[in-house]
């Protein structure tokens, strides 16, 4: 990919981003990186993309425990029927689990052995607040509801190389939200808006206007430095995405078609995923990607094989297939998670309320897929959390830790920085191929 011509005012990207990093550095405590971890990401390690399903996705509809009679007893109207080979039933994965039929596009990944599930994962904190639980997930610190940086930002910080120039390197990219908590913190990160807005450079495309605006932000204060860095990365983002769309061989051309297969709020996710992939392709220093989708809080009329949730799951599956296509180097990994699960039983309005444990999904060539990992005890009353919810059998941090060690080379002390006090879970040691 050719880089766009720089406006002379911008100087080079490295220097500008160094300015941004400097801004971040100014916020940090003096000891900031004194204890920085020795494990680092080198250019050969894989990339990680995390897809966060905000609002608590109903994992028991996505990964269907069809062999469990309690599943059908607890969900008389919304359960996904056991696989019988026809379209409106679960797709058989193994003797216990099936896949929601709207996610048929993922079946090949399971068969190729690159898709795995941890069926009862989640946080040790029992909160049923979306907002607390999301914060716990994003900060990597269950139980603390404010005041922490995001673990992916800390990971980007860990990944810095010791050479001074590396401070300028932006390693993490989010497409979609204005400023997700998972990326807040000291390390410089890039955030690109949802949808078509990412490709527009607007009035700043005019040299004259851009020069005049940047003149107002020539100072050395935090806002000015941030503004200049933003102008640089935005022009580059727009240019990269536009040239990718212009290239006929690029997979971007398929996006409109694929997007039409989906519906509902998760639909825009596919476009964001394409933007993420294009930008990470163009900038090899970007190793960490973050996407999110809402619309999962299905308290009422969630449907079964068709309906609200089915539409969202279909869009998600299409996005994951696309992500797998774009992130298929040996050490790349895609992780899907939600802040908690939903009640094992349907409620009085054809939906599900806030629960506890939920499935986490992993896709990657090193993932030992085509099987599930961790512990699953079924939905009998005695096995449920507070008598109603799927329990958490595998801590989400332990799942992430496995992925980070296997694909990002993060050491034990690095993991402890990301997830202070978490316990390594040996029952997940088979999750990744050596």
């Amino acid at each position, binding site marked *: 990919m050719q880089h766009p011509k720089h406006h002379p005012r911008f100087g080079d990207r490295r220097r500008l981003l160094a300015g941004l990093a400097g801004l971040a550095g100014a916020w940090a405590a003096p000891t900031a990186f004194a204890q920085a971890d020795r494990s680092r990401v080198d250019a050969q390690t894989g990339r990680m993309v995390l897809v966060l399903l905000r609002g608590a996705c109903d994992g028991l509809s996505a990964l269907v425990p069809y062999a469990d009679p309690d599943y059908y007893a607890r969900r008389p109207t919304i359960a996904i029927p056991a696989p019988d080979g026809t379209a409106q039933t679960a797709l058989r994965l193994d003797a216990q689990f099936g896949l929601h039929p709207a996610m048929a596009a993922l079946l090949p990944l399971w068969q190729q052995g690159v898709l795995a599930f941890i069926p009862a994962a989640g946080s040790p904190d029992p909160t049923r607040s979306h907002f607390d639980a999301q914060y716990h997930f994003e900060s990597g610190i269950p139980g603390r509801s404010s005041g922490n940086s995001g673990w992916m930002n800390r990971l980007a910080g860990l990944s810095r190389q010791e050479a001074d120039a590396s401070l300028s390197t932006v390693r993490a990219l989010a497409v979609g939200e204005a*400023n997700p908590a998972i990326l807040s913190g000291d390390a410089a990160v890039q955030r690109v808006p949802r949808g078509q807005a990412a490709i527009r450079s607007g009035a700043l495309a005019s040299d004259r206007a851009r020069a005049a605006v940047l*003149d107002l932000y020539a100072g050395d204060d935090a806002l000015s430095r941030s503004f200049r860095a933003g102008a640089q990365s935005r022009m580059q983002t727009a240019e990269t995405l536009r040239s990718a769309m212009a290239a006929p061989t690029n997979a971007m051309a398929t996006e409109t078609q694929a997007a039409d297969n989906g519906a509902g709020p998760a639909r825009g996710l596919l476009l964001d995923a394409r933007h993420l992939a294009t930008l990470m392709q163009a900038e090899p220093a970007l190793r960490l990607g973050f996407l999110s989708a809402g619309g999962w809080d299905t308290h009422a009329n969630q449907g079964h094989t068709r309906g609200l949730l089915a539409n969202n799951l279909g869009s998600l599956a299409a996005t994951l297939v696309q992500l797998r296509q774009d992130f298929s180097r040996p050490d790349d990994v895609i992780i899907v998670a939600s802040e908690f699960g939903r009640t094992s039983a349907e409620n009085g309005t054809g939906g599900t309320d806030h629960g506890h444990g939920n499935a986490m999904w992993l896709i990657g060539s090193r993932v030992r897929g085509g099987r599930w990992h961790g512990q699953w005890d079924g939905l009998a009353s005695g096995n449920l959390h507070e008598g109603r919810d799927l329990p958490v059998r595998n801590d989400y941090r332990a799942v992430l830790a496995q992925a980070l060690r296997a694909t990002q080379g993060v050491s034990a002390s690095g993991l402890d920085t990301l997830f202070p006090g978490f316990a390594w879970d040996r029952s997940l040691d088979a999750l990744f191929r050596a």
Partner: protein
Amino acid sequence: MALSRAPFQPRRRRLLVGLGAAWAGTLLPQAAARASPAPDVLAPDAAAWRALSRVGYGPDTRSAQQVRDLASARDWALQQVDLAYATSQQAPQLPPGLTGFNAPLPSLFEGARREREAIRQSDAEAMAPSRGFLNDLGPRQFNRTMLQQSAAWRLYSASRPDVENPLLARLTEFWFNHLNVFAYKGPVRPFVGHYAVHVARAHALGRFEDLLLASARHPAMLFYLDQFQSVAEGSPGRDGRTRGLNENYARELMELHTLGVGGGYTQDDVRALARILTGWTVSPRDADGFQFLPRRHDSGPKRLLGQDFPRDRLAAGEREGEDAIRLLARHPATARRIAVRLAQYFVADDPSPALVQQLASTFLASQGDLREVMRTLLQSPDFWAPANRLFKTPMDFALSGLIALQDGDGDTAQAPLDRRRMVMTLAFLNDAGQPLHSWQTPDGYRFDAATWMVPEALTRRADFALALARESPEPRFLQTYLSADTRARIAQAPPALRSGLMLASPDFMYK
């Protein structure tokens, strides 16, 4: 709480204090880096800017003059409390063509019903999406038209301090956001503007429990958090099945609208409150859009936060829900939560515990009188402290730009709705991550700099400012509020860009 395990992670609090200190001392960010110790009082122009940009969305020539005519900006700010209250007791002034969304609820229900009907009866060919903003597109596009009108009214009222009291517009945003509804959930769309007017605006400076009850009974909220279909366990449903509870509203009512997540309730309380509220649902025919269905109400005994419901036989049924909502509204944890949120919106990203305590005390002592709470806030030294800088949200930024430019258009009272600017503004809010009426979850938008000061997003503000101000005369009255450095740089820019550059300047990013 700081993490002992990771001492190199600064606490958010420390980080924000650090930022505050970096910004302190002056309105001018560029000067801030050079300025030594911060003065402890705002200069008169800076105080006027703060009052006009926080109590309202920003100055126009008229309001700038109003402040100048008084002894202090503080006097102007305090005056707005009573003026805003008086305005909130009157119907909003709606320009021609923007009245439909505020029609009585039965006709909004009827419009939505006709749209469903029209869509059912029409063939696919007739379903081609219609274009345009604020065009009446007939019964098939009723919901869309109502939502566009609602958005237009929000922008209109908040950018016309001559038409709508600026503090009332501010608080309409605040309370809508605190009791957020998402336009695209279920059948919410046509009711969003009505909710803004009759819940957020009407009770903006009244008593908090009245605001909360109005929200609880409004179709927008009943639909949004699924309360309209939550009924006693075992109620008859379709196909011989039974229906029952939905916990959604009960949980968010305690977690977000009142007590806060650490407010001391349990999962059992969530269930109890959901049971108390069974039978609260929408009514397409009643003027208030609400009805209580006694046969769908769970009449068994419940225990909420240690209290028995119903209190006695006379207080059974619909009254249980009212009592529960008033109990929650008057709770000390609620007072604290409202105090924190108001202080964050009006004063500082990380408000001082003393201010929060003071606001919470006023809230409790006045039984949730929001005028008293606002007076306490505007009289507090914290509101006027130079160190308490606030960075504009995209909404703040867009509205302040609209206000500044409309002023240049001459006789504002006669100025028609500028559709081009409205469409641009709504598009900007989308791109900036703060789309109007479209925050999906009930927590509402955040207002802090940590959320909105994002490198690429900053440049979109400049982009919007330049586009919005194209061909507009320079809003010269803003000069007073800009730093000498900014003024000098703008004076050297091509004349056609100067209006936009004033709005795109660093000075204009703060409120």
